[in-house]
């Protein structure tokens, strides 16, 4: 990127707009790593975040998978939580009141077992004034009902997203799975069906074995890989998708530093989500926000939006 001097030392503008949701900065938690907000609310100032994204909600409560549900791997971790959540009704009654207290826009991640359930949850959530946007999970690798069946086929993605589109006027983000042959095809289907933005990537399916017992380390056998190990894969997918769709992207995958976050924006993301890194450092998101601001100011970039999709690929004729 071109470096400009910034003699007036004005604070860089970090605000972005994702599908009509105005964010004071592009940093938000990844669904499933931030509980319902209250878990982290004790430790960080939620008002400083770009948005809140809560654990995926389904129509009825899910108790999740039997333990062990997580295992550490080289540079990452596998999880097979199994979409444990309190269900739509309890979410609205018990969890929303806490989230209502903040000026930060609230994005609710949701999923269904069937298209009908997807629609019903979307409808109920759309009736709640304090919800700024929906993030539709068509990509959980750990349960059959997590939508993955919809998220690995472009036609089914199109059909499901179109149906949900009809029942909500809220900004609709679709969270994509990396466990596909061509993520661009799924991204295009979701866009065509009316998605206002795309979140990518969800975790990458993997497994871990305990050699001494000969057993899988997760009760679910397989789980979703997250953490720094998946960052290069995520960056590649964000870049690929950014070249074929027009809707804004939210980059996710192993982001642990401000530089990681900015790299995703250079690749084409308008905002980013932080997940696993928050487990090791509870104040990582405020630190990343400050770090991004510092980087921009040092490099004379007054508006972060200038960075989005600014990747230079000199020898690529498509560029």
């Amino acid at each position, binding site marked *: 990127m071109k470096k400009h001097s910034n003699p007036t030392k004005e604070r860089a503008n970090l605000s972005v707009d994702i599908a009509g949701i105005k964010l004071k900065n592009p940093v938000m938690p990844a669904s499933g790593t931030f509980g319902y907000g209250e878990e982290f609310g004790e430790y960080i100032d939620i008002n400083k975040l770009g948005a809140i994204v809560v*654990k995926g909600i389904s129509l009825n409560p899910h*108790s999740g998978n039997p333990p062990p549900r997580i295992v550490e791997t080289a540079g990452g971790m596998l999880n097979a939580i199994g979409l444990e959540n309190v269900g739509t009704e309890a979410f609205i009654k018990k969890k929303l009141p806490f989230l209502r207290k903040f000026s930060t826009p609230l994005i609710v991640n949701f999923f269904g077992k069937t298209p009908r359930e997807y629609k019903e949850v979307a409808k109920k959530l759309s009736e709640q004034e304090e919800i700024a946007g929906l993030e539709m999970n068509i990509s959980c690798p750990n349960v059959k009902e997590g939508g993955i069946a919809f998220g690995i086929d472009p036609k089914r993605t199109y059909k499901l997203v179109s149906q949900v589109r009809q029942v909500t006027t809220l900004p609709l983000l679709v969270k994509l799975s990396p466990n596909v042959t061509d993520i661009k095809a799924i991204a295009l289907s979701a866009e065509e069906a009316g998605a206002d933005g795309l979140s990518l990537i969800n975790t990458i399916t993997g497994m871990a074995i305990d050699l001494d017992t000969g057993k899988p380390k997760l009760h679910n056998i397989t789980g979703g890989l997250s953490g720094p190990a998946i960052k290069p894969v995520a960056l590649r997918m964000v870049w690929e998708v950014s070249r074929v769709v027009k809707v804004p992207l939210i980059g996710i995958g192993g982001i642990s530093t401000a530089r990681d976050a900015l790299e995703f924006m250079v690749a084409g993301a308008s905002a980013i989500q932080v997940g696993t890194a928050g487990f090791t450092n509870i*104040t990582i998101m405020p630190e990343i926000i400050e770090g991004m601001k510092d980087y921009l100011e040092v490099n004379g970039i007054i508006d972060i939006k200038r960075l989005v999709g600014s990747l230079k690929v000199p020898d690529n004729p498509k560029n």
Partner: protein
Amino acid sequence: MHQADVIVLYNQEVAHSCYKMRFLSSEIAESAKPGQFIMIKAGGEFGPLLRRPLSIHRILASEGAVEILYKVVGTGTRLLSETKKGDFLNLLGPLGNGFKINTDLHAAVIVSGGIGVAPLLFLAEKISEKKIDLLILLGAKTKNDILAVSELENLGGEIKLATEDGSLGCRGLVSELLEKRLGPPGSPVSKIHCFTCGPRRMMARVAKLSKQYKIPCQVSLEAGMACGIGACLGCAVETKPREWENYFASQPHYQRVCKDGPVFDSDEVVW
């Protein structure tokens, strides 16, 4: 709760592959309750990704220092064991709910298995301060795995030992010591509470005995954790649903070891 770099004052092997570490943290020393834990980042930038959950072993209030007792079981704890006096470690804590010591408690029995003694010394100290009758049953595989005996002896209560190979104390399981102590089933056991930590099978036996004798029993559970604050839902333990949670009726019911525990009533846990 507090996330900070702390300075290590002491880190020594106290038994085969078991280490005691002392670090400075007045915040934790002032606020921690027995049964709570901390999450430690081991091995710096290139260490394992996740923090390691470790019980608070003892608080040295006057020095603002905290002790942990841990066993080397993998890369994280091995790196932790290589930490030297003067090194800094990043930690988060105190976390979890800790043991409950009822005000009307007359007598307590602490049942420990192996490295399970880690949270129990702190508890034993608190119970002794309250002048509650205390019996400590310490079990382990061999005499080399019996830990913290001298610290527990200093409290002045009664201590009984059991090892599986008979190399120290009675030969057998610590749960057998408890059973012997409680007498034939139906014996009157008034207002005694049981507190236990150790291998899961040992705790399951202690839980079963406590149920037979109708003694309240608190267990401190262990689980692999990612966040330690209740957000990731990674450390689930199956428990019996409470009545108001019966909407989960057709599904198993889980609680978070980190946030809802690590101490649970033994009756709650599905063993």
